[in-house]
């Protein structure tokens, strides 16, 4: 686990070569690259915290500003996670984000949106066919999702660095998992960076 966390942190650090070095404040730019490393768990929020650091994943996203102050943005994300006991998954979601500045260059985010999760099975599975069994591998199921999250981060538009690090706790409400358990809670703990490339400025 320690090794995994080290790689994760180093992975985030590796994004730093992408930073630009503007000679003037870069300000806000639409379509930054948002890279996240994350931990996925089938868990109630703020429960089973150990499990929240067991199943790692990667995410890629971007955002556009919804107002002139840029404290309302719309994000689009694609996340892949591995979870060996409940099955790996792929998730696409969009969230409306309110991003107030707390103090100095530190900001928080409250975000909510909708998404779609393609969840695979953890083991090869079978479909009954004419009294026999046909293997279907780890065939997945697509399910609507409602992701709700809280973030803290740092962003200094006046700095030379083009990277804004942040950490997010997301609760995912997955609909239609099983008819007997129609709404399943999952969590994502994300650590990532919003990278602001110089789009030809």
């Amino acid at each position, binding site marked *: 686990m320690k090794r995994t966390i080290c790689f994760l942190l180093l*992975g985030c650090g590796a994004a730093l070569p992408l930073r630009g070095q503007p000679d003037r404040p870069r300000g806000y730019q639409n379509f930054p690259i948002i890279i996240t490393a994350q931990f996925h768990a089938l868990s109630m929020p703020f*429960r089973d915290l150990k499990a929240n650091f067991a199943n790692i994943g990667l995410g890629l996203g971007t955002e556009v500003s919804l107002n002139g102050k840029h404290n309302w943005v719309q994000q689009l994300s694609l996340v892949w996670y591995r*979870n060996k006991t409940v099955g790996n998954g792929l998730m696409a979601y969009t969230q409306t984000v309110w991003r107030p500045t707390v103090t100095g260059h530190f900001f928080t985010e409250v975000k909510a949106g909708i998404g779609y999760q393609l969840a695979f099975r953890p083991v090869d599975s079978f479909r009954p066919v004419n009294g026999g069994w046909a293997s279907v591998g780890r065939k997945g199921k697509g399910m609507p999702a409602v992701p709700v999250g809280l973030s803290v981060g740092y962003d200094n538009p006046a700095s030379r660095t083009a990277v804004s690090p942040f950490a997010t706790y997301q609760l995912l409400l997955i609909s239609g998992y099983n008819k007997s358990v129609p709404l399943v809670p999952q969590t994502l703990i994300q650590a990532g960076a919003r990278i602001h490339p110089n789009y030809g400025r």
Partner: protein
Amino acid sequence: MKTMRTYLFGGFVFLLLAGGCSVYRQDLPMTSCGSAPVAVNPAYSRAAQVRQAMEQLNRAGVPGCAMAVYSAEGWWETAAGYAKIEDKTVLQTCHLQYLQSIAKLYMAVAVLKLAEQGKINLDEPITRYLPARYSRYVTDAGQVTVRMLLNHTSGIPEYNFAPAYVTRLLQHPDHLFSPEDYLKYIEGKPLTFKPGSRYSYRNTNYVLLALLTDALTGSHARYMTETIFTPLGLKQTFYRDQPGYLNYPNLVNSYWDRYSDGILENASRLQRNNVASLVGDDGIVATPADAVTFLRGLLEGKLLSAATLEQMKTWVKDGQGKPAYGLGLDYTTLGGEEAWGHSGGGIGAGCELYYFPRKNVYVFIGLNLGTVTDSPLHPEAVRARDQFYEAILK
């Protein structure tokens, strides 16, 4: 430096992908077993129809099913389908089945045995027998009697309705829960109705009965073995009798339909570890013949006195005013016939053990398909199960 970082980032991605491809297994090794546990009547008159119904269960999507029946024609048993799909291990009647909630009937017998021995009064509050370290989790425990636990009229909340329990179970299939862990899920929750005022089936009641019996006997599992398994000669019935409990090579693999889409995945590790953790409300495995031998032994008076048996058959009513449950004994109608016994359902198994008094027939049927979560395979399986009872009872 940039190259170094690129390598590290690449290493991280490789680790992530490699982790995602690592082999994870839910299936458990298992073997074929020896001869049939009981001498069956080869001329059993319903054999063909019962076999047909069992094959219909397989066609409906049940991997394997095994049954035993005892009637005026003597013993008969059969199995159909697979104990394990992956290596096509054929299910036999000597394979162990999960009894799931049928274990409650065994637990009730153990408690009633204590009552017969004068070690417990069914109408005393549970706080008289249950150590405070457990009763403190139960709101108004002093208002709940032992009898209310036995017939599910206590109003104590259900632990396995707690979403935190279900998510922990699924995310950690190898986690073993302690009895106290279950009680923590109901800690501070109010009783859902006035104790004794109505019937509502709750697994928590039987967890508390197991803990209460532990306090009186030292070990409810040992007490159960001494007072039930040994007197009835149940050599293929097991309950918390070894370290690493449930490590039997003739225990069936289990399957469930995780996404309710008719696709089954092996859930044997999850099922085994879940059942190995459960106390009082679940946890027993047995062959079909051993299960029937138990119910016969109970209802033929080999375990409890006639007066105690009458108490077991004092039915509390359900919401519609129909008889529902006695002391550990379920009252139901199957194949149009009144039946006494118990059913059981789990993530990876389902079963029924019933006596039909009008026909004087004892039946057990066990499936290695989960029945507690919904599946589109279930309606057809229920129709096949109805055919099964029709074949036996008509």
